[in-house]
């Protein structure tokens, strides 16, 4: 049997669900920003190292 909820109870669950979904979405967004930034910085470091190596190699020649 589907339990009938009063209007106030329905509103409570609606607000709870919206708050929970919004907070979870925000958490995922923050993590995505941070990991993307990690990757970008990682790529930047790799690029710098490669450039340094190339520069050193050229100098030796």
């Amino acid at each position, binding site marked *: 049997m589907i339990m009938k909820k*009063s209007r*106030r109870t329905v509103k409570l669950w609606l*607000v709870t669900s919206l*708050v929970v979904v919004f*907070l979870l979405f925000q*958490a995922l967004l923050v993590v995505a920003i941070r990991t993307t930034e990690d990757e970008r910085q990682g790529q930047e470091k790799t690029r710098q190292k490669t450039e340094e190596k190339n520069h050193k190699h050229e100098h030796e020649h």
Partner: protein
Amino acid sequence: MKGFLRIIIYVLIISLPLITVAIGNPAVGIGFVFELGKIFALLAFTILALQPVLSARIHWIEKPFGLDMVLLFHRNMAVFAAILLLAHPVLLSAGIGDYSLIYSTEVQAFVYIGRAVLLILLIQVILSAFRMTLRIEFEKWRALHNLFALTLVLGAFLHGWLANNDLQLLSMKIIWIALLLMALSFYLYHKVFVRFIKEKRFKIVAVEQESEKVNTLKMEPLDGSAVEHYLPGQFHFLTLHREKFPAEEHPFTISSGGTSDRFVCSTIKMSGDFTHTIPQTKPEQQVTIRGPYGRFSYLLYPKEKNIVFIAGGIGITPFISMLRHMDATSSDHSVLLLYANKTIRNIVFGEELSQMQKRKNIDLKVIYYLSHPEEDWQGESGHITGDKIKQHCAKDFHKRSFWLCGPAPMQKSLLKQISDLGISTKQIHAENFSL
């Protein structure tokens, strides 16, 4: 929507640590899963720090929703925080591919603190959700709940501080301390300031027996000042100060009509350990009142003029309060009161209701229902059902608003039956009295 601003403020406060770490420390993670574990913990601590704010019974917060709904939201958010905290160590371990964090004994002190917090939170949630099933006395549960709540927030604060991860940021350190201070200050406001410093003492003027198991306490402010304004149908928290009994705080509906600022009444049925001591209350004994709270009042819905009140047993109290107010103000409402009891001896306010009908200050019709009637009973017998309500209302059934107050199974059943007869839930009012 009423209370929208309050919800936005709540969400913004919880979002603050997340936004701060996203801006101030955008790239420190080991990977997506590990980061998610950390962010979940930030979120959970903020939710836990806001829990004392929700439960402090602040009028500005509860007014648009009703205290029952705020406390249910408080419960829902505790469950959400518990899920986030359970996921926290699992995600951290999964992120680094090493699960020793969960079971190893060779870990730093803050990990032990984190484990303790998690354990206490789980116990807290289980005890709160299954208090009735586990038959834990309300007072014992509340004492434990308060102790655990304080330990949880302090433990979670310490765990985050010592882990020193995102808290390396000065802005996060400030937010972390501010959240702790906010939690502690609301906790102290609720538990100490309001109870012992700002408390308003009343004295018992009379203890009137309404029926075999029902008594009314009439109370006046001790200092002779006016009673705080309340709406008929609201409830308050009473703490009786009696030598023989511990001073426990319990919620009771206000049964007086709110037309006099000299006194306030609560009508109480002997249904538990505490309420069985009510007849032993004596005049001149003191009582602390906190409130009023709740949105179960016809004054909050001025457009509803054709009303059906459906009371089960002691559920009559908010209705007698509203009827007294309507009678005293000669309101233009048309009220049908369906009042269910086991036997005729359980009916309270019967004489007063018939006087109200005779006075005709309001258009009032009262129909009694008895589930175990005596042989000579002339009125309705059995339980109130949706079909019977429809019969009594006749043509204007769909235009009326319906107010339910009684035992939870009765409320749930009637809510469904009335809705099934085509009444919108907008027209039905019910309050969660047993939280």
